[in-house]
């Protein structure tokens, strides 16, 4: 059977085909599609298993590790910064090893396109001493997923698949195998020296890990060579596919030889040196950090000497320019790239977050410090109601840090943190505990749209179902907030400006007079989902009265709904994108935005 699959779908298929029956993770671009694809396949082929999101990556990694120790083939899925969150169990699982087979799927984001860093997870494999496979195409992603599970089972070691945005989000025709159900048999062989190792036994585990890596290096490392030129390029991942295309397209087959490495760690440098000694020049082109280059330990051109740029995505254009600089292919007459017309990313028309940010901004103007977080609502930037975005949950800890810093200086500075529902569950709860415990008066606004909107509307712990559709018990944010000991808690619909304004003013008053945080929950379902849009309150028509509009653009500047468009003299509403929610009405000081019921 041939299917047209994306890299992420291909990984899901490969994992299930190899026998994986437990997948956990946390959504994050570009990794988010792996788990939903597994759910879809499991349904379609009636495969038993557990395929659901965890509250964060650390929890997901621990869950998968345990299931692997119970002898079930498992996989963990996250984006590169998600693996950072799971670092603690991840490092330890490498040492303890896996039983049923454990595949660590990590999607990196060189560019970056939608991440805070360009970090290379292959280094995390190196760091933890686990093998990493790096697919160049969706087809390889499928094959390597199967290979990773088999390697993991054979050597009882977690195996990483490192993909990147381009591999995860490209599609290819792939000849796939058969998916069939089997009876899952969990089993646990107690062994405290391993599973509850005291420091005394840890170095023994480390020794075993080193032995496994040595074996894998000797038995599993291979280099594939292509073409027959005098200069050698060592490469891996998507860069191989790009190089292959350039060489065939520009007929450079007798100028270059390509050595492709599927497993960049552990690298067998002897095998590699035996090959490279035959060439007059060695160039290493790999996307991310110099992982192969540093293990190569011999003279070569690459990242270290500046031949390959040290930052940014290694696009096919960048690789071409590297080959041109090295005089391997002729310089092209400078041809400027045409860029598509720029459109600033913006919250969707009618998004409840926008009204929430607008209310916050109306109450606090430019007086407050606004700590933001990761999710759609990062775009509160456009409303100038977000000053910092660091990592998951940092809005709350940053709020705490800023409040204390200004408190120490005896400066009264209101701090307003904004965080989404899923991000609150992921990493916002622990800093809130700190804020209560250490008496820190600032405002935390939880923007609750009951979904992980940014990455494709995955369910959150407040939902009554999880990814696989099965019934789940909703966990209520307000109960958590109360249980932590927050005294000031108000909840409003994010479409109710008056409620939010009042709550914000009260919260402001509260943090001026008390020494603990005030929490507000502004709740409105994401309208990007069919369900959310269908149930959203709407007017028959929302329009701008041309006679009343002064063309001041105050609505556009302060409210910034993309459906509000300045036509040169007045503002108009773009009816093709407007959802008639009427939220923009409050933003016009001249009452020019009208609604028809």
């Amino acid at each position, binding site marked *: 059977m041939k299917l047209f699959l994306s890299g992420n779908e291909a990984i899901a298929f490969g994992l299930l085909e190899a026998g994986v029956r437990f997948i956990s993770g946390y959504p994050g671009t570009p990794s988010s599609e792996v788990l939903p694809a597994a759910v879809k396949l499991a349904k379609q082929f009636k495969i038993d298993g557990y395929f659901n999101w965890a509250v964060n990556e650390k929890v997901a990694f621990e869950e998968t590790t345990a299931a692997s120790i119970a002898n079930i083939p498992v996989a963990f899925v996250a984006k590169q910064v998600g693996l950072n969150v799971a670092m603690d169990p991840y490092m330890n699982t490498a040492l303890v090893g896996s039983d049923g087979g454990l595949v660590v799927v990590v999607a990196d984001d060189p560019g970056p396109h*939608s991440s805070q860093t360009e970090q290379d997870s292959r280094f995390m494999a190196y760091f933890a001493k686990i093998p990493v496979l790096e697919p160049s195409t969706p087809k390889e992603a499928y094959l390597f997923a199967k290979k990773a599970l088999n390697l993991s089972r054979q050597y009882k070691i977690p195996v990483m698949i490192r993909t990147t945005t*381009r591999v995860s989000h*490209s*599609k*290819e*025709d792939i000849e796939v195998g058969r998916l069939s159900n089997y009876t899952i048999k969990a089993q646990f062989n107690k062994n405290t020296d391993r599973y509850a190792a005291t420091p005394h036994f840890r170095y023994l585990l480390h020794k075993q890990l080193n032995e496994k890596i040595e074996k894998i290096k000797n038995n599993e490392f291979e280099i594939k060579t292509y073409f027959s030129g005098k200069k050698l390029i060592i490469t891996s991942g998507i860069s191989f*596919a790009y190089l*292959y295309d350039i060489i065939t397209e520009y007929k450079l087959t007798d100028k270059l030889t390509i050595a492709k490495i599927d497993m960049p760690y552990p690298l067998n440098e002897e095998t590699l040196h035996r090959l490279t000694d035959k060439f007059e020049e060695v160039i290493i082109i790999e996307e991310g950090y110099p992982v192969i280059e540093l293990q190569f330990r011999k003279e070569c051109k690459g990242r270290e000497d500046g031949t390959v740029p040290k930052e940014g995505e290694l696009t096919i254009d960048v690789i071409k320019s590297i080959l041109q600089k090295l005089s391997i292919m002729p310089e092209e007459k400078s041809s400027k790239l045409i860029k598509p017309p720029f459109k600033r990313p913006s919250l969707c028309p009618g998004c409840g977050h926008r009204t929430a940010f607008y209310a916050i901004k109306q109450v606090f103007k430019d007086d407050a410090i606004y700590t933001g977080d990761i999710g759609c609502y990062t775009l509160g930037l456009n409303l100038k109601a977000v000053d910092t975005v660091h990592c998951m949950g940092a809005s709350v800890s940053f709020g705490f840090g800023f409040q204390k810093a200004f408190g120490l200086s005896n400066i009264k500075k209101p701090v307003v943190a904004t965080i989404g529902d899923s991000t609150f569950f992921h990493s916002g709860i622990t800093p809130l505990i700190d804020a209560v415990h250490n008496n820190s008066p600032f405002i935390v606004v939880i923007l609750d749209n009951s979904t992980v909107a940014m990455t494709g509307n995955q369910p959150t712990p407040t939902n009554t179902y999880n990814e696989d559709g099965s019934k789940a018990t909703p966990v209520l944010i307000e109960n958590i907030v109360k249980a932590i000991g927050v005294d000031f808690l108000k909840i409003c619909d994010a479409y109710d400006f008056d409620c939010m304004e009042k709550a914000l003013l009260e919260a402001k008053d509260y943090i001026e007079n008390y020494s603990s945080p005030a929490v507000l929950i502004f709740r409105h379902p994401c309208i990007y989902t069919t369900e959310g849009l269908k149930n959203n309150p709407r007017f028959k028509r929302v329009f701008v009265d041309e006679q009343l509009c002064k063309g001041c653009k105050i609505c556009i500047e302060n409210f910034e709904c993309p459906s509000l468009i300045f036509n040169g003299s007045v503002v108009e509403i773009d009816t093709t994108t407007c959802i008639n929610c009427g939220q923009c009405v409050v933003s016009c000081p001249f009452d020019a935005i009208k609604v028809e019921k």
Partner: protein
Amino acid sequence: MKLVIIGVGGMGAISLSKTIAQMAINKNLSVKSSEIHGIAKKGGLVEVQMKIDEGLSGVVLQKEADIVILLEDLYFQYAKAFLNKNGILITLTKEEKESIKKEFGDIKFANSFILGRFIKKQSIFDKLDAVEVLKNIKFSEKNLKAFERGIG
């Protein structure tokens, strides 16, 4: 063949690429695509680059494409930049779009119309290859009709 499809979110650029990919698979030709989306969810640029029966990556560079299908006029200059010397741009006029919307009730059927145009402009696929795939998708009757219209 190197092909680029350019549209905005929700217009069906991706479904169109899937239809063409399925046509290639049915003929046992290799097919790869590479998708690029902006961060803006609604109305943002969606670009699908495709290689059929060639290459290892799905990436198509500017000045390389044999055919560019443009679904959103805003990106006319950008779309043109992808064409090679003999490249062909396929797009719809406003009138055509409106008449499709009127006749079929949804602008999405423009994709099958434009697939008809595409079939006429290249030599890898013929009419039956497309019909074979359209037969099996949602609203196949309407899609087939729109497709026939596009073939002219």
